[in-house]
């Protein structure tokens, strides 16, 4: 485009490292740590030390601004509620459960049928703690309460490099996926549901087309292999060619992740919340990249050890993909319901040079921001210009740092700018 940049970029995904490798299962250790923390807020516990819990027992619930519950992933005894390292980088309260190794299940909710009413489905979304994409722990039920929806967009893009967990989930749980999408489609009252998948996966496109052949109104929509294709704004731009201000509902869209659809089907048909996750363990610092299945609350160390061996003495460990996944400094952090990957990378030794003002960051920012201008204004302490540049609309996708030829940590600069703007907002 001529007046604005492409606002996206093809990345080398390294997907073949783990895509078609045999999925392994992690032996859940004798102690699991389930964070009482979801969507950036603390949850209030509803169990006590010494209580016996089952797989699926509700452990606590976050209440503000939206209700999201937390569930146990093993059966056993609550040993403590204590601070433990967390993927959010700040230690938070965890429910420590001694695993009795029996995995006795007690579904916290009663199974519903495929033709359950809208109200029942919405209630189920809320009770099962189904969190949508879009960060900030925005629960799915809030989105699906919106009126006037015309398009449901299902995000099966998985645009983060290295990650293939969603892809493997589709392979292994296609039936649940179809059921979940059908339920969401009905609930949303949209005219069309678009199942978006990268055009670089022709075999998966074929499978999906076949799977949805009998479902009216659902179409498979191949999208280009670019980053961040899985962000709702970029998806809506691609599918509907429109922009919106804050929420997709403004333009009649709901975007949900493929894994959310699968989790929803599980919650409706079996009354079970998410207790296990498909996790990609990949990167250039692990000898045998693959996907593993691990229970929520399993420390990363056990997950990595199941997958293979780390190469080298120093490694960068990202919870998620290398673009948005936060770098962890302890392998004691545990799998949370949002975990979809652990990327292990050799440390980089980039030499930072002066900003060349090449404008690549501005050309590629999917939010239409000008990272170079934001950082210049921040350094010059030019608050007025900074406000005008709207750094708060940054989603920290990391693309500006990725494209920067001068190897500047551009995204980190934007985070600093956000903090300045936030502080100002508080005054």
């Amino acid at each position: 485009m001529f007046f604005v940049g492409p606002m996206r970029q093809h990345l080398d995904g390294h997907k073949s490292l783990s895509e078609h490798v045999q999925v392994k299962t992690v032996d859940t250790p004798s102690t699991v740590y389930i964070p009482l923390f979801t969507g950036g807020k603390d949850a209030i516990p509803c169990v006590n030390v010494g209580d016996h819990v089952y797989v699926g027992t509700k452990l606590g619930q976050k209440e503000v601004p939206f209700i999201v519950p937390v569930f146990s992933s093993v059966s056993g005894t609550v040993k403590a509620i204590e601070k433990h390292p967390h993927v959010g980088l700040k230690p938070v309260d965890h429910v420590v459960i001694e695993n009795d190794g029996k995995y006795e299940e007690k579904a916290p909710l009663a199974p519903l049928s495929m033709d359950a009413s809208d109200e029942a489905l919405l209630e189920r979304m809320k009770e099962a703690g189904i969190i949508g994409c879009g960060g900030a722990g925005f629960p799915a039920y809030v989105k699906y309460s919106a009126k006037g929806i015309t398009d449901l967009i299902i995000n099966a893009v998985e645009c983060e490099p290295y990650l293939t967990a969603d892809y493997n989930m589709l392979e292994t749980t296609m039936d649940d996926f179809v059921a979940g999408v059908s339920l969401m489609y009905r609930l949303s009252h949209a005219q069309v549901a678009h199942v978006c998948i990268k055009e670089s996966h022709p075999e998966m496109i074929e499978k999906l087309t076949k799977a949805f052949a009998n479902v009216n109104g659902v179409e498979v929509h191949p999208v280009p292999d670019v980053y961040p294709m899985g962000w709702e704004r970029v998806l809506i731009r691609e599918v509907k060619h429109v922009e919106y201000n804050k929420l997709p509902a403004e333009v009649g869209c709901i975007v949900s992740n493929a894994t959310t659809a699968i989790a929803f089907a599980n919650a409706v048909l079996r009354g079970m919340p998410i207790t296990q996750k498909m996790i990609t363990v990949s990167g250039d610092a692990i000898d045998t990249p693959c996907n593993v299945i691990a229970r929520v609350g399993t420390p990363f160390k056990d997950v990595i050890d199941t997958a293979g061996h780390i190469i080298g003495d120093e490694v960068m460990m990202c919870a998620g993909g290398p673009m948005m996944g936060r770098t962890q400094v302890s392998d004691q952090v545990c799998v949370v319901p949002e975990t979809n990957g652990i990327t292990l990378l050799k440390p980089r030794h980039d030499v930072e040079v002066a900003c060349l003002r090449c404008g690549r960051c501005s050309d590629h920012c999917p939010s239409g921001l000008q990272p170079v201008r934001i950082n210049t204004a921040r350094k010059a302490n030019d608050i007025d210009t900074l406000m005008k540049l709207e750094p708060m609309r940054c989603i920290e996708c990391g693309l500006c740092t990725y494209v920067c030829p001068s190897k500047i940590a551009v995204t980190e600069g934007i985070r600093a700018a956000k903090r300045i703007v936030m502080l100002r907002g508080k005054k």
Partner: protein
Amino acid sequence: MKYVFNASPNYRDNVSTSRIMRDLTIGLLVVFIFGLVNQYMTYGMDNLIHSLILMIAALVTTLVTEGVWALVCKKPIGATLSHSYGWVTAIIFVLMLQSTATVYSVIVCSFLAILFGKLLFGGFGHNIFNPAAVARALVFASFASATAADVVSKATPVSTFANAGWVASSADSFNQFLTSFGGLFNFALGLYPGAIGETSFIVIALVGAVLAWRKVIDWRISLTYIVTLFVIATGLGIINGQPLTYGLYHVLTGGAIFGAVFMLTDPVTSPTSAAGRIFFAMGAAVLTLVIRVGASLPEGVLYSILLMNMVTPLIEKLFDGNQIDMKSKLVKYNAILAVCALVVMVVMSFMVTPAENVSYPTVVNLGASATNGDAIHVSAAGFSGEASPNAFDVVLDDETQTVVSVTFTTFNDTPGIGDQCNTPEFLDQFAGLGYDQIDDVEVISGATFTSNSVIDAVKQAIEGGNQ
């Protein structure tokens, strides 16, 4: 096991600023090599060697200046030099020079431009003006008349046409002017007198295309500049009764393509936003035309770039904000500028008056004056062979059978090369010579064929007179 922390993202593109600069350097060297070829073919070996010397002088001055600066600032010299990319500035500067520039002026101007145009601003990435353009402008301002003694100098098409006011008095006169330098195709090819690296549209455009593909330069700037310049120049030409090739001429000469590919795209001194860059390039094109036609200066490209560098911070401010929300504004501002460009074009069209009776260095009126009455018409094969020989009028002293004057009547050899013989200096040498002395005339190196055709013709004339 050590878990290293780094704020996300932990994934980076392979493209680095050093790679960008390396590609750019290679591109510039390709252009330089072509420039050397042109210097040799158009002027001769001396100019080629002098061009090389100028390049070395500029490079050494730049690197020494930056090295000393690093020492003074107590920074590691190696890293500072390799991340300051001074050599790019030096090469661009030399490519913009005529090969007649003195080594002294190159050293002084490189030094001043690097110091005041770049280092004092805070070094690479902080300078407001394109340092190479600053250096070139300094040469104009301070050393305009200084030309090196040992090289050939020639009227360039741009300076010739600029003297004529950039607008020819008639379509015929314009065509005549083009032909005198080998026609439009030769302008595109670049074998004509001009700055070392600026003459060839084709070579620079090809290098530019590769650099754009390698994402070294932003093609949007180059394209916008060239298209805008072409459109407004063509419009101005049409209003003033110039042929349609007039717009092409503006694009093909005077370093327009060089500016578009290597100068305007300098990221440090151009805006960072896409819309800002379009605005910047369009503005530069308008200024180029205004400076060329309005002020009759040959260096419209250079000054327009410096002026646009100056307003870059303002353009940045104009386009600050969320680019998605501002989209209509982005388009609107650029549309306004495009309309302004057209208005400027029309206004300029009525302001210019083509200079009358300008003599272009054409085949018709070059050379020694001769009385056609008693001239002997002869022709002799030059570079183009027997098929299209050069034709001459040779006037002889009937008594002594020595030469009075030699004049070209038809020149069929390579413009810019062969016409080194079409000068009083060369032709006047024949005056007073007899048949036996003709062979002693020194041929012009680089224009041997044409020289020999003159010698042949004179001999023929004397032989004919003897019969």
